């Protein structure tokens, strides 16, 4: 009993200290359940950023709280309301897309500013002036990939294999195909697959091979991509492979022969092997604390908190301001400021909340991700 009393006293003392002059920043994410890997990564990343900022002791201090939403819109709104009761002043939205759509509507109605680390669907920001994204919106990845392939002159003739019952895949493919001709890329083969017939890709690969595609673009998650790579090798087809952030994770997939992915290029905003100081220190801290290499979600969470720090400093906001006042200032700052973080340099936001940043190209070399640049 005594121990509990002491503990509670300590906890109370700590919270009251932090309460002094800190912005209350809250987010929801799946901390338990099937999608917990994403929620915990974003939360851990954000925690590290908050610890760093509070340790530096500048004008802007944070108090972070993450609530579990189990990747469910209903629970996400409940979690959001719990954060509101706690006194959240700025929000990290939700980690996954669908729950974030639900909480973003609440953010908009309550005038609490939100910057989501990783909810990438376009519906999250649609029609809401105070909801911003740290990650690329799905369709943007398509045009960014086309741009990157053209800039680096990887190929002239390109094949696209995409999943036509998946919004993520469809969104990326649509903009890629639209943008490619403008940049002098020729899409010679375009084939699809769907849930249920995603085991045999020989038709798609033969088509790409016959039409002489030098590069195959794979806007999809890593499970079907791994099969495509294996089957292409079996039929002796060796084009260049190019993927998007859904491909991140292929190396850690169970039962996947890493040598198959050798030379696969992918475009993701975060590269844990980057040699800049910021990334190095973040990766080292994350590894020391959680025993694993941070993924893109963790980096997005980390960047969100730093973006807030910068915006709040620029706006000269103080923790005693109401969420609504901060919201107005944040909209002003986020649409004008330029941010440098671990997921990109010269990060800018459009008024509709979408982010523009230079994606980082990565290539798989000797079973590890290595930066292309």
């Amino acid at each position, binding site marked *: 009993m005594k121990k509990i009393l002491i503990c509670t006293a300590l906890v109370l003392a700590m919270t009251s200290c932090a309460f002094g002059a800190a912005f209350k920043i809250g987010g929801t994410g799946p*901390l*338990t359940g099937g999608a917990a890997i994403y929620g915990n990564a974003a939360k851990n990343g954000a925690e590290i950023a908050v610890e760093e900022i509070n340790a530096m002791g500048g004008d802007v201090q944070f108090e972070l709280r993450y*609530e*579990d939403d189990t990747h*469910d*819109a*209903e629970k996400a*709104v*409940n*979690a*959001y*309301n*719990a954060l*509101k*009761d706690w006194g959240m002043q700025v929000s990290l939205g939700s980690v996954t897309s*669908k729950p974030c*759509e*639900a909480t*973003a*509507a609440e953010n908009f*109605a309550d005038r609490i500013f939100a910057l989501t680390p990783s909810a990438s*669907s376009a*519906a999250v920001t*649609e*029609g809401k002036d105070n909801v911003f994204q740290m990650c690329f919106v799905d369709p943007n990845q398509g045009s960014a990939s086309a741009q990157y392939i053209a800039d680096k002159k990887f190929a002239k003739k390109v094949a696209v294999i995409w999943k*036509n*019952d*998946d*919004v993520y895949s469809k969104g990326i493919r649509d903009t890629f195909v639209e943008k490619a001709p403008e940049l002098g890329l020729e899409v010679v083969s375009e084939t699809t697959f*769907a849930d249920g017939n995603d085991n045999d890709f020989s038709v798609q690969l033969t088509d790409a091979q016959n039409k002489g595609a030098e590069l195959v673009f794979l806007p999809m998650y890593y499970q079907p991509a791994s099969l495509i790579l294996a089957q292409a090798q079996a039929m002796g087809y060796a084009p260049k492979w190019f993927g998007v952030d859904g491909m991140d994770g292929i190396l850690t997939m169970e039962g996947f022969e890493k040598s198959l992915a050798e030379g696969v290029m992918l475009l993701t905003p975060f590269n844990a092997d980057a040699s800049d100081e910021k990334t190095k220190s973040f990766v080292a801290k994350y590894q020391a604390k959680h025993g694993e290499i941070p993924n893109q979600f963790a980096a997005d969470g980390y960047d969100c908190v730093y973006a807030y720090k910068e915006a709040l400093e620029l706006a000269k906001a103080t923790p005693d301001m109401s969420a609504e006042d901060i919201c107005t200032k944040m909209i002003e700052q986020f649409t004008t400021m330029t941010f440098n973080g671990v997921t990109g340099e010269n990060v800018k936001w459009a008024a509709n909340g979408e982010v523009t940043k230079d994606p980082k190209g990565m290539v798989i070399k000797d079973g590890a991700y290595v930066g292309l640049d």
Partner: protein
Amino acid sequence: MTMRRLINLKRVEARRIYLTYGVVILAYIICQTMSSTKMLSSSMRGMLVPICAYMVMAVSLNLVVGISGELSLGHAGFMSVGAFSGVASAILMQSVIPFEPVRLALAMIIAAVFAAIAGFLIGIPVLRLKGDYLAIVTLAFGEIIKSILNNFYMGVDSGGVHFSMLTDTTRLLKGGRLIIRGPMGISGIQKISTFPAGFILVMISLMVVFNLVNSRSGRAFMAIRDDRIAAESIGLDITKYKMMAFVTSAALAGAAGALFAMNYSTIVANKFDFNTSILILVFVVLGGQGNMLGGIIAAAVLTILPEKLRQFSDYRMLLYAIILIVMMLATNNAEIKYFLSRLNPFKRREEAE
């Protein structure tokens, strides 16, 4: 008619019905006053509408499980049919009927109709079975509904409404809107569900269920539940009465689904999975089979409980499970029941009667 029927009821039964209405109305008045005077936390305020939806779900499932005695494990399926048809119709009516309460009411009616049709179609094969077999088949149908909605596309443009299955082949004209987007569900829903609307729906479902239970048909339900062979021997049409209970229950669940969905800006079919069906069954079992008030209270308590346990973070769902087990044991313990009944003046008189 209603009044006469209630007057003719046994005093005990009438008292139970009035007590249920009374508790619901009182709870509504308290919550509404607290909500308008800002005494209610946002967390609680946000849960008012879903709680109403879950209450209706509990009441409707109670009709099947408690009154007609069939274990149904696919009730969330009807909720999702209602949710999707209700939201889709609300979106289509958006420009025609700008007045939100009317649109909400119409959407709920349409949702109830669609869910009733689904209930009828599913009822045809399902109600030929009994006991465990019926339970398993309803479970399967719940999953089938989820699967269908996960592969269903519906869009609207100047040319009218278009449907497609498996892949989106609606080919909408410019300015068209894809309303139901397969696994992505529906986005950008206008939040028109309100607590008063939820309260009215709870009251309507209670009236429907109480009237049905205390009618000739209701007595037939219970006769069939208690002894199927005896009921058949006196000429009761078993399939007809079972179907009546099943379809009514599905319709109410559909309306609840529409209410629930329009409280959020987005809805996906995967929300209404097996877990949700079980959750509703838990409300019914914890509240007592056939006991409407119990089911209603259980729905409220079990929706609020996980939110109140947030302070325990990672141990939240563990505690929830433990509390659930304790509650189940306690509500089934004869001594505790006796103790509670001593506290209840109505019950005590009941015993004396």
